[in-house]
């Protein structure tokens, strides 16, 4: 069963999606909302697997809502009538989107794709879950006009830049407004390691570890990036690696 939530500021637009989803026996609508702030609370409470999300809403856009999510991002299908800017964002990053009025066949395609993704994720998910983000979880990132859903598995490095954090994955490196400390609190320390004041590394991406000045360590990631580990953190890393 997929637990879905509908977010659209127009009641009739929500009703329309509800009608369409009636034909899908494996989808349960757990909540709906027309106000972004309320929707954020509901997502926290219900922890849905899937959002059907409008873009243009009063106060905040659907993108802004995703940016404010504090935790893993659910699967998202964007639903919009016509929005040139959003369409560009969708096409560049291959996000799922549907155009109003929604065609049932298109909806079915999207849902099939998403069911596959959710199944894959559940297969790989670790048995015990401490509520923190592990490498199978996806997060939503937005930098200016561009946005991405990224599985944390692909993120090799977080680097602090003032009040921002630069996220390195594939050939992208967007800048997001977050502190490294806040980020570390949400990331599972089984997979992510605070190398220094400036860096968090993904342990799965570590290729080599070399000794460095004054008892520090130098981590070389699979893509060749070198990250210095502070002296204090080096002790911790050695302990972890000794296992």
């Amino acid at each position, binding site marked *: 069963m997929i637990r879905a939530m509908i977010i659209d*500021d*127009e*009641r*009739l*637009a929500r*009703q*329309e999606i509800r*009608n369409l989803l009636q034909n899908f026996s494996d989808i349960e609508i757990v909540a709906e909302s*027309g*106000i972004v702030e309320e929707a954020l609370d509901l997502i926290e409470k219900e922890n849905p697997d899937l959002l059907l999300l409008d873009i*243009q809403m*009063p*106060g905040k856009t659907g993108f802004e809502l995703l940016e404010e999510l504090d935790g893993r991002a659910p699967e998202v299908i964007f639903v919009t*009538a*016509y*929005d040139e800017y959003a369409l560009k964002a969708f096409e560049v990053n291959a996000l799922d989107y549907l*155009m*109003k*009025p*929604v065609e049932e066949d298109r909806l079915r395609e999207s849902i099939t794709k998403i069911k596959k993704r959710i199944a894959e994720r559940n297969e790989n998910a670790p048995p015990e879950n401490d509520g923190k983000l592990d490498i199978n979880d996806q997060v939503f990132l937005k930098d200016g006009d561009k946005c991405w859903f990224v599985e944390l598995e692909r993120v090799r490095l977080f680097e602090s830049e003032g009040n921002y954090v630069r996220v390195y994955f594939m050939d992208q490196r967007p800048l997001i407004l977050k502190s490294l400390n806040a980020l570390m609190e949400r990331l599972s320390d089984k997979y992510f390691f605070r190398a220094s004041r400036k860096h968090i590394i993904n342990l799965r991406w570590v290729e080599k570890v070399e000794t460095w000045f004054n008892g520090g360590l130098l981590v070389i990631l699979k893509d060749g990036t070198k990250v210095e580990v502070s002296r204090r953190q080096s002790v911790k890393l050695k302990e972890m690696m000794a296992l």
Partner: protein
Amino acid sequence: MNASRNYYKAQIVGWSGYVLISTGVFILSGKQINISAIGGIYLVFALGLILSHVYRGMIIRLGWLEKDMFRLIPWVLAACVLLAISFHSIYLTIGNFVFNWNIPFKWSDQNLFAWGMLFFIWNLIYFAYIFFQRYRTEEIKNLKLEAAKNEYELRRLRDQMNPHFIFNAMNTIRALIDEDPVKAKNAVTQLSNVLRSSLQTGKQDLIPLEKELQIVRDYLEIEKARYEERLNVEMNIDPKSMSVQIPPLILQTIVENCIKHGISKLPKGGTIRLDVAREEDHVDINIFNDGQFDPDNKSDSSLGMENTRNRLDLSFGKSAWLTIGNQDETRVKTQIHIPIQNTTS
């Protein structure tokens, strides 16, 4: 501003160049350097600077810059002769007095010709710069005009069919078909009316206000079906104003902006109020909507507003106008003033 700074720079550089070259030639020719000769060179520098500056003042005051360049040629040549003569006489007077040159003024003096050439070159540079500058601003103006024309055409086409509105309306109607079939039927009729009017009236220059108001009403009905209790509409229309001619879709464009930038941005929605009052020689149309107007927002709607102004301008010239601004902290007021043309009404 920039051109004037360039002028001063060119003056200093040009006349300093003269000093440098003359000093160089003087030294290379092996003549003995004395105060009288060096003083002469600097005298040329100072006099050249002052005389050419006074001459430039005259060019501006006589409005030569606005005149056709080719007609100016004889005047410029005459000016060069006059400048050379006055330059030569002042140069000799000061030189004879300060440095005891004892050179009498003679028409055959070849220096006279040299000064003439100097001022001729000065004019050449000055007018070439002006000509080039004028050519460039003209070019930019033409390009801007061209772009504005294209933009207008494009917008005119797109205004007739606002895809965002149409698809949202379709979506609303789809949901209404199950919930309230009667309302759904009405919405289809209203949407047809709006689409038909925008196709037909796009070709007309002016339509009666009555017809425009019908489009606005149908349009607002559809948006009311969509926004439900979030959109509230009030209309106070003076019946005497119904026959007044206005450019088509002017009010519709404004009402659409009221929703796009006002009502749709407010979680609780708001009210659009449309007041039309007929005066002796004009109609006052006031549209209020909840929301705030941001004059710095350079979105496509501010272009739409500009476009609306252009259309009023094309139809009525300066006797029609449109203003938009914040009435108070929660409301925007759009005001349109349209003159009544002498028709039977």
